[in-house]
């Protein structure tokens, strides 16, 4: 055990689990104690969902080094699969958390399967081309999901595309209604389940990263040709990362879908994909704790700025640009260091003067 704790990776992983658990306990405590406003209560599940989306995308972008612009597509598959499964199991599984969990697993598996199917053609491409194709697939998935009609009545399940080609019997219910999306969803999502989702995501991603699979994935990122030359099947490992990432996004999507009473496919568009990517990049590529923190802060930030009304999104844009300039630009960094040197120089001089 002691040897285990001496391992640098194990230690930093424990820190991540600890931060997440403390956050959960504090928020849950405040929630139970009635200290949260209703809007803050509403943030809890989405925060968990976005943490999990950011961490799973970080596996792809930060650790595998593949830019994906279609993460919201997998989230959407998970969301609608989750909604349908939860509706179908309404009577069969009475225990709500169990029904939710089954919905999340099904959402994850379907998203993972979609990831695999998409991965076969997509992973032949690299770099910006991979990015554009993931963007295209994200839009295709959104487009398909947004044109599905699923109804449930005494006769069973009815499914059709482009328009509702079935009429439901009395007492029947539309689960998905094309572009309108799902309405009348029974909200199953809970903050503790969100916490479980985050734990599962962290467990999968962290354990994957610190294993031979993770090393192979990082090797492919650092130098594809060298990775091949030491016997690593590059395509297989990119695929593994892609499918795992899609699976986790699907689980998160299912929880997200079951957190609202209605959900339209347009939610899972390019902008959502981009937002998740922003969480990853600002949190630090490959930095899992960074993703957790930035997803939390950046999700809450625009919401917290709501009092500024029209100015909040423009402020968000400015913050985003400035953060990128200050963290990346060599010139801005140099300028900052010159300024701080000067300021500290002034203080030092004063110190010398007062000392002398």
């Amino acid at each position, binding site marked *: 055990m002691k040897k285990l704790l001496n391992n640098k990776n194990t230690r930093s992983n424990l820190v991540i689990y600890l931060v997440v658990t403390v956050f959960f306990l504090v928020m849950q405590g405040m929630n139970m104690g009635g200290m949260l406003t209703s809007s803050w209560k509403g943030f809890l599940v989405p925060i968990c969902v976005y943490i999990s989306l950011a961490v799973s995308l970080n596996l792809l972008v930060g650790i595998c080094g593949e830019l994906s612009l279609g993460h919201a597509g997998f989230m959407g598959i998970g969301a609608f699969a989750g909604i349908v499964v939860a509706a179908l199991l309404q009577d069969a599984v009475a225990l709500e958390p169990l029904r939710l969990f089954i919905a999340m697993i099904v959402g994850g598996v379907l998203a993972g399967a979609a990831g695999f199917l998409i991965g076969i053609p997509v992973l032949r491409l690299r770099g910006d081309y991979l990015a554009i194709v993931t963007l295209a697939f994200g839009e295709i998935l959104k487009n398909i999901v947004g044109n599905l009609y699923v109804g449930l009545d005494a006769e069973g399940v009815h499914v059709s595309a482009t328009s509702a080609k079935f009429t439901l019997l009395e007492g029947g219910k539309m689960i998905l209604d094309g572009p309108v999306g799902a309405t009348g969803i029974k909200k199953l999502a809970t903050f503790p389940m969100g916490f479980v989702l985050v734990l599962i995501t962290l467990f999968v991603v962290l*354990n994957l990263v610190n294993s031979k699979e993770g090393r192979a994935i990082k090797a492919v990122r650092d130098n594809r040709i*060298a*990775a*091949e030359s030491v*016997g690593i099947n590059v395509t297989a490992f990119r695929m*593994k990362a892609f499918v795992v990432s899609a699976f986790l996004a699907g689980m998160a999507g299912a929880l997200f879908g079951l957190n609202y009473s209605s959900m339209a496919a347009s939610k899972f568009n390019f902008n959502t994909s981009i937002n998740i990517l922003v969480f990853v990049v600002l949190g630090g590529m490959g930095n899992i704790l960074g993703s957790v923190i930035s997803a939390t802060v950046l999700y809450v930030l625009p919401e917290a700025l709501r009092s500024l009304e029209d100015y909040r999104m423009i402020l968000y844009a400015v913050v985003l640009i400035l953060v990128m300039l200050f963290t990346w630009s060599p010139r801005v960094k140099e300028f900052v260091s010159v300024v701080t040197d000067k300021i500290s120089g002034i203080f030092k001089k004063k110190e010398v003067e007062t000392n002398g």
Partner: protein
Amino acid sequence: MADYPRKVIQVPTYNLFREQDAGKQPVLDVRNLGIDFGGLTAVDSFNITLGPTEISGLIGPNGAGKTTIFNLLTGVYQPTRGSVLVNGIDIKGMPVHKVNKLGIARTFQNIRLFSEMTALDNVKVGMHNEIRCSFLASLLRLPSYYRAEAAANMKAMELLDFMGLADVADQKAGSLPYGVQRRLEIVRALATNPSVILLDEPAAGMNPSETTELMHQIRRIRDTFHIAIFLIEHDMNLVMNVCEAIAVVNYGKIIAKGTPEEIRSNPAVIEAYLGKEDND
């Protein structure tokens, strides 16, 4: 490993250079190899056999096609003509990672380390196919994961120590000095448990004392692991001292083959390197 048709070609006898290799199947058997790039012949009629414990050199002027030959031998390029047999198996049509599994490993002229990873992890990536631990076992952190990782760590450290790199095990590969990076690439290649290792200009950028050290290490690799070594090098001192056989290429073709002594006095080689003497 059964998804590729394997044609094991039995060849009666081999006149391999080293006495102890005589009559054995060569680790590398290259026959009539050639590649064209858009009508331009880069390599042509390249023939070579390498005994199981032989150190051979490939020399030639810049642009003679040496690295192209290495790329053909490791499956990076598919040849237009001819065949490459690694341990008797034709690599035709195989992806690079499968060719490596047949027992051929390499280093690169322009160093290709996994620069964001530690030296130790670089070596452990090299051991990837050696580490026996399933995806599920690493995901669930089963005991077999810890066993496999501990064993891998131990072996990787041994290999690093063998090349005198144990001290830098925890440093990022990209931050290491040039000469150290070259040696780390060799360790990573060794970690794949090859039967032949190709070194592309291993001494490039090294100072004379580092080069001397490298010569000893190359011999030590052969003597310890009993593997064949095939190297491209411009440092003639290293080539003449370490290699037991040398092939000289120019314009993609072999112009001479033989022992260092034979090569040194071969007029075609002198001409390729120094140009033809004028008769005026």
